[in-house]
């Protein structure tokens, strides 16, 4: 059982429009940037991380951490509704033991997607459903 935070928001924009906004992430914090591709960099202020999964325009999973903090996993899911888009975000720290920077380095070495960290994350996410 992971520690997990979940938040939801429904907006009138289409899934595609919301997705475009995710790519211009002023909303994520000051000086924020996300490269929307697997193993792409994530930055928001002093936080740094990398993208685990991209399924445009519906799903984005990334890991990040602030200096001296545990790495956490963020999942953003967009679902089309009759009136717009339902956004669901969950943040969890399933691998509290690992330091964020080590994780990013190792993930980079595996070339993205197929590494054990990505699999472990996927399993944890899957187990919740």
């Amino acid at each position, binding site marked *: 059982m992971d520690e997990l935070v979940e938040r939801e928001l429904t907006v009138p924009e289409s899934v595609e429009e919301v997705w475009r906004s995710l790519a*211009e992430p002023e909303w994520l914090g000051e000086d924020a940037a996300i490269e929307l591709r697997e193993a792409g960099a994530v930055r928001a202020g002093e936080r740094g991380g990398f993208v685990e999964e991209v399924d445009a325009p519906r799903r984005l999973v990334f890991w990040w951490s602030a200096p001296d903090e545990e790495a956490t996993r963020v999942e953003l899911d967009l679902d089309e509704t009759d009136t717009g888009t339902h956004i669901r975000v969950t943040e969890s720290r399933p691998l509290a033991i690992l330091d964020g920077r080590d994780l990013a380095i190792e993930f980079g070495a595996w070339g993205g997607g197929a590494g054990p960290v990505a699999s472990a994350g996927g399993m944890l996410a899957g187990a919740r459903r």
Partner: protein
Amino acid sequence: MATADPADAVFAALSDGTRRSLYATLGERGEATATDLARGLPVSRQAVQKHLGTLAAAGLVATRRSGREVLYRPTPGPMSEALEWMAEVGAQWDDRLAALERQLARRRHQGASGLSHRTGA
């Protein structure tokens, strides 16, 4: 409870409504016996004692003996580690989603005044 992560034991212990209310009552009173705690609840002293044992195993309550009585008191440590994180991260996402909503609304207005491009709604 053989869990690697102390937070798991904390959340498991607090997954039960009776235990949550026992923990909350202990928080208010500071210290109490199982008999005291059972008085305000529709459960037996034995049941209260069992619940307190689960809370103690999760590190949420500590005990001390005073004469013939066992007094229970809350230990906020493990609770605060897990829950403070959730409260902090939750508040951050409230802010970020509010900012995303504003960003989308801004774009909506710019789109309406600038380009005459509208998706039919």
